[in-house]
């Protein structure tokens, strides 16, 4: 199968092309003003790499998968339409109150400490565009106040008269009993019919997120409504362009749930963070094929360092209330950690704290970028340090397409770090590198420990353009670091391994085990009915995708908790349906095991009862995967790939040493490069310090180990 996978990042847009069994990677600069430009450009580059035109390549492609930051970009620009929000009367201020400390959402701990400067984000829907309608459903899903239709109609007209170009309807418990949300939509449709100029989209929050929590559910619905039009326009333009150039297969969007879905069945909010999630899914796939059970996936780019974990052959670690820009949403996403450490991270001295050196989280980004980019940046960055220390070749950055100016890097580090500290420029650069590596290593340790493991139990996968340059420093106690020919475009590679997946979530509280008496439920019907309804919905959607739902595998996860607790733990259910007491027991035991492993056996509390809060059904249709090749091993001697030598700073020697330089593309399976050495690729540089060696194995993997 021929496929294209594209991942748009903050600095670069990456592509992986699999064509007639041969992989190819490409990178172009991201064009934030119009992502369709870099989207087309990277495909053109790939086509030209094959000696083809775009219109010659695309008809031969079977699948195009896309992870994008369009949603984030458009959200930051605040160019969405004027929306009206219809809530339950008395609860109009929900999104403005923002569960109190809304101002901390989307900020780092250090940024939120100064209360004198904090601000809540400007709301996407201002207060005068929010109305409450007279209705109420209670926590059991019962109507305790019927919808006052006259009141609803009056308020819809009010919003329309104030210029609403879209409606979000989010009523309390609307996900549990949608009768009022649906009726309000009918009223809107009755007022503004499809053929009216005033026809506007209506988003029902209960349909966007079927889970408890009105603040997070409403915000997810608002984001979808807010971004829907701009994403539709932008993606339609890409879609049209692809079709114009001969592409006839579906455009699939990567989702933060870990699956892919057809573009027109994707909601805006679910595309958020899809790049790092795709990277993690790629790591999961590769780990499976290599027989690694525990993997730390890392991606070090220009501004951030993303970490995700494959633990016991699984990526089931979730963020239940992720933040998109400044907004907490009720969508469940696969968890990845992001810290402010990348090539563009700025180094600075904190004079208040006895000249402590801090690297990140501020980043120079791609514009002006590091000082050595010579685009106006004057702050010293990690990339500047790498240039000063001789790791990055200023003449071969980005395959030589971007010439770096080392003197700018020297000047920035000298003025801002070396002089104030009274050390040499090289020492200062080394300090920057050491601190950023140390911070990344510490972040990895924390993530690994939180899952109850030690770094020694893991293999580290290296992704991102800056990852291979720093992995020797951040791998810490992880014995083996693996880089790939596609490391610089790992997220794009990741999407090529993803299955088509639809995720269905619904909150429904069910007692599996009674508090105190520990009596197990015998009401299997309520549980099973919920699953059946979700499966029916999945079958309809898969049929709509043109897929045979008989090919789909169904996986059930349950958000569960002990009585009296607030935080749920998502557990993999060993049963899809309940038929007997043993089934109930199996589900409770699976939950107890996961809960205990994640937190502590001390806090397991079956005396409080065991409850299901939400059901999560995944309908998965396997796609064809790219497989790593098995190649014959050459001799260990890498001499054929040697490009030359140059002085490189090695902290062990506290000085520069003339160091051999190798071309990554020239290395063959079986080659072993003993450190100290630098291996330069078109899109990245691998640093092998004196105590380590870098080898290429029969799968083409680059292994860095002591």
């Amino acid at each position, binding site marked *: 199968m021929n496929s294209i996978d594209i991942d748009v990042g903050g600095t670069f847009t990456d592509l992986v092309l699999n064509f007639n069994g041969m992989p190819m990677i490409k990178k172009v600069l991201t064009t934030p003003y119009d992502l369709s430009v870099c989207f087309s450009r990277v495909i053109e580059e790939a086509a030209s790499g094959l000696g083809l035109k775009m219109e010659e390549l695309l008809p031969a492609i079977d699948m195009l998968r896309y992870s994008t930051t369009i949603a984030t970009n458009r959200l930051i620009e605040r160019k969405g339409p004027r929306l009206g929000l219809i809530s339950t009367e008395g609860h109009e201020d929900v999104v403005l109150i923002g569960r109190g400390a809304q101002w901390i959402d989307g900020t780092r701990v250090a940024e939120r400490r100064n209360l004198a400067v904090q601000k809540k984000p400007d709301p996407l829907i201002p207060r005068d565009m929010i109305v409450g309608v007279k209705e109420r459903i209670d926590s059991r899903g019962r109507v305790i106040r019927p919808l006052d239709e006259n009141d609803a109609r009056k308020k819809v007209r009010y919003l329309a008269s104030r210029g609403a170009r879209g409606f979000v309807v989010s009523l309390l418990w609307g996900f549990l009993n949608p009768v009022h949300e649906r009726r309000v939509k009918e009223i809107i449709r009755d007022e503004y019919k499809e053929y009216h100029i005033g026809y506007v989209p209506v988003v029902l929050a209960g349909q966007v997120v079927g889970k408890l929590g009105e603040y997070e559910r409403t915000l997810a619905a608002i984001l979808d409504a807010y971004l829907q039009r701009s994403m539709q326009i932008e993606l339609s333009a890409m879609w049209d362009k692809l079709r114009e150039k001969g592409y006839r297969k579906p455009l699939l969007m990567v989702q933060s749930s870990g699956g892919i879905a057809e573009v027109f069945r994707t909601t805006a909010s679910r595309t958020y963070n899809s790049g790092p999630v795709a990277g993690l899914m790629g790591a999961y796939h590769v780990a499976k094929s290599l027989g690694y059970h525990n993997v730390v996936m890392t991606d070090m780019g220009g501004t951030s360092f993303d970490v995700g974990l494959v633990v016991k052959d699984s990526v089931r670690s979730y963020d239940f209330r992720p933040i998109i820009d400044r907004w907490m949403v009720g969508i469940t996403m696969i968890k990845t950690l992001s810290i402010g450490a990348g090539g563009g991270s700025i180094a600075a001295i904190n004079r208040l704290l*006895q000249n402590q050196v801090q690297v990140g989280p501020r980043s120079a980004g791609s514009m002006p970028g590091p000082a050595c980019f010579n685009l106006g940046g004057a702050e010293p960055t990690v990339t500047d340090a790498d240039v000063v220390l001789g790791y990055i070749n200023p003449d071969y950055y980005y395959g030589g397409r971007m010439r770096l100016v080392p003197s700018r890097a020297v000047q920035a580090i000298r003025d801002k770090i070396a002089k104030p500290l009274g050390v040499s420029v090289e020492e200062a650069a080394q300090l920057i590198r050491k601190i950023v590596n140390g911070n990344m290593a510490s972040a990895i340790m924390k993530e690994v420990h939180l899952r109850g493991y030690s770094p020694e139990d893991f293999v580290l996968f290296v992704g991102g353009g800056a990852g291979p340059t720093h992995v020797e420093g951040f791998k810490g106690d992880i014995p083996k670091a693996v880089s790939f020919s596609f490391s610089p475009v790992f997220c794009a590679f990741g999407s090529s391994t993803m299955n088509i997946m639809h995720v269905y979530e619904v909150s429904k509280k069910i007692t599996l085990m009674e508090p105190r008496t520990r009596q197990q439920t015998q009401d299997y019907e309520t549980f099973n009915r919920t699953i059946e309804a979700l499966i029916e919905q999945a079958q309809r959607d898969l049929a709509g995708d043109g897929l045979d739902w008989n090919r789909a595998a169904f996986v059930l996860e349950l958000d569960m908790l002990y009585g009296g607790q607030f935080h749920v733990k998502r557990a993999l259910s060993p049963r899809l349906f309940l038929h007997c007491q043993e089934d109930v027991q199996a589900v409770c035991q699976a939950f107890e095991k996961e809960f205990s492993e994640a937190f502590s056996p001390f806090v397991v509390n079956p005396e409080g009862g065991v409850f299901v809060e939400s059901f999560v059904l995944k309908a998965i249709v396997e796609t064809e995967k790219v497989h790593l090749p098995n190649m014959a091993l050459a001799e260990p001697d890498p001499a054929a790939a040697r490009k030359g030598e140059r002085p490189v700073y090695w902290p062990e020697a506290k000085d520069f040493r003339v160091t051999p330089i190798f071309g990554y593309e020239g290395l063959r399976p079986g080659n072993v490069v003993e450190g100290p050495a630098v291996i330069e690729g078109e899109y990245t540089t691998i640093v092998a310090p004196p105590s380590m060696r870098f080898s290429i194995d029969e799968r083409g993997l680059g292994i860095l180990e002591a």
Partner: protein
Amino acid sequence: MPIPTLSEKLEWLKPAPMTLYERECAAKIPRGDYEIGVQTTNDILEEAMEVFVRSSRSYFGVSGDSMVAIFTASGDLVNAACGTYLHAIIQPIIVKFVLKHYKENPGIREGDIWYTNDALYGGIHNPDQVALMPIFYRGKLLAWASAALHTTETGAIEPGGMPVSARSRFEEGLNLPPIKIAENYELRNDFLEFYSVYGLRAPAMFISDLRARCTTADRVRVRLLELVEKRGPEFVVGLLHKMCDTAEAGARKKIEALPNGKFRGVVFNDAIGWTPALVRSCYLTVTKQDGRIIFDFQGTSPENASSYNVHPQAVVGHIANFMYEYFFHDLPIASSTFAPIDFVFPECIILNPSPTAATSCCVFIGMQTRCATHNSFARMMFSSANLWRQVAASPGTQHTSQICAGLSQWKLAVADILSFALNTQGQGGRATGDGMDSYGFAWCAFGRAPDSEQVESELPLTITLSQHWKDSCGHGRHRGGAGAVQQWMVHKVPELVSLCMGNGSKVPLFQPLFGGYASAPIPGISIRKSDLLEKMQKGDPQLALDHRAILGKDTIKGEWKYELIARTPQVYQEGDVLFGFSGGGPGYGDPLEREPDAVLEDLVKQIISDWTAQNIYHVVYDPERRKLDAEKTRQKRDGERRARLARGKPYAEFVQEWSKKSPPKDVLQWYGTWPDAKPTGPVFRP
């Protein structure tokens, strides 16, 4: 065993002098390794905090209103993940007490867990409980780890952990001095049994939270020992002491930048327990001189026979909240930052009561010391070119602390606080702009209010409205943030027990700055036998679920009751209604200087009423179209300024007139002598 004296406590707040060995270890830490070491402690604490939040059961635990910390071997707090800053400065007192008195008997050994909730020994009040673990490496004490959290049940004479009617510590339930509850890494079953039968109303929650604290402290211990294994004990000892030293140097630098002088803040409280009572809850003189700050509380009212007293270190805890949010925000959380700060607490005042005093509701008074600190520091900082941006009025911390207890719709025994009103307080107006509306919780700025659906799912309530509380903010050139209001209807069960703690129904407790207005007091309102549910079910089109409409027009029928916010435990029936309020923040600067457009924006946001816009801000506009008449506004404001001058009088004349006035005698029972608040006699406690 002696209870720590005031002078011991104040001495223990200061960092212990470094030994030669510690100094040498600190000096050996290379640059770069130090920065990474600091980050490693941050990550260790963050990891432990996540474990803490996930494994706690009480509301405060799950919302992160807690603290995890690392200490030096001699008990100085070096770094913490917060939650709340309340415990950050004062926990060394507990560690140093244990070190002083229990080294030999029962001994401090590897695998111990020490536990305490007794404010006499260094805590805030007895719902706040802390687990402490000594960290040994090859038999040598290297450091300590702690986990502190508020649990809403202590077996007191009322449920909820903060008994309003307690008159002495003997009515407050469990007050446990530092005690060893685990040995050889195992919790002692005899102590667990003791907690189970002690008389706690929710023993399972109590034990669960206790285990969460122990698990968390142990997590810190394990990780720190991993660092020791990797880098050696000298590195870790050096790192911790260098962090201590660096934080102190930073604090000294910041304090140096403040102008010298004396600055005063005075705050009054309006209730003691269930009864109205005026007390001068904080008479604070802050002196900045020679790189040091002295907080002197002379002039504060005497202690009283209620739980509204505060032990001195709890006062320091409340001041730490201000310091870390506005002044030391760029410093590490380390107790050494308070090294250049001294405290003067006269004996037997409400902020330094006798050992038998009840203090479980101390936070309501403690927060007023924070307000006095805000105002004193505002006066200190406003003329500073670097620090004026940090000036802010105190947050509006008056709120409805409503406890609900009984059987839930899930047949679970519940006894917890309705935390929306805690976590949606308004921030005080700031030198640079308005306070944030419903910004959070003054004791834990990052804590989150729950969704209404979350509360309704767990508790037998239906929340029939949840809104910003119009006109709750203190007005000003930069107004305070608005508070919020909820209406709770008992639902899905026949009955529920509820009580409420707090203060601030009669007098605005939190003071504005530089001509701003105070924020609204908090009423205690309930409706028994209300027809709300019936009206809802019938679809009554006249029923408007808006707090102003309900409170102003009496649209809900029933037995309305207006009381003080603090209310005794009572049984409420299904359909009965309670109101919960979170206070708005006080204002900053003269409302006449507020931009008229900002006033109109507040109208659109429904933060203020038309009455306020017209009569407080003196803005003239077309009420239908909300269009400003700039010229008429200018004229109206000029008119008001002239009227003010006409109403004014010379200062001496004012003082002469004012000093003759006195509040009614029946509210001065606990004030002390009028007006200078001197003790009038001993306090008798049961």
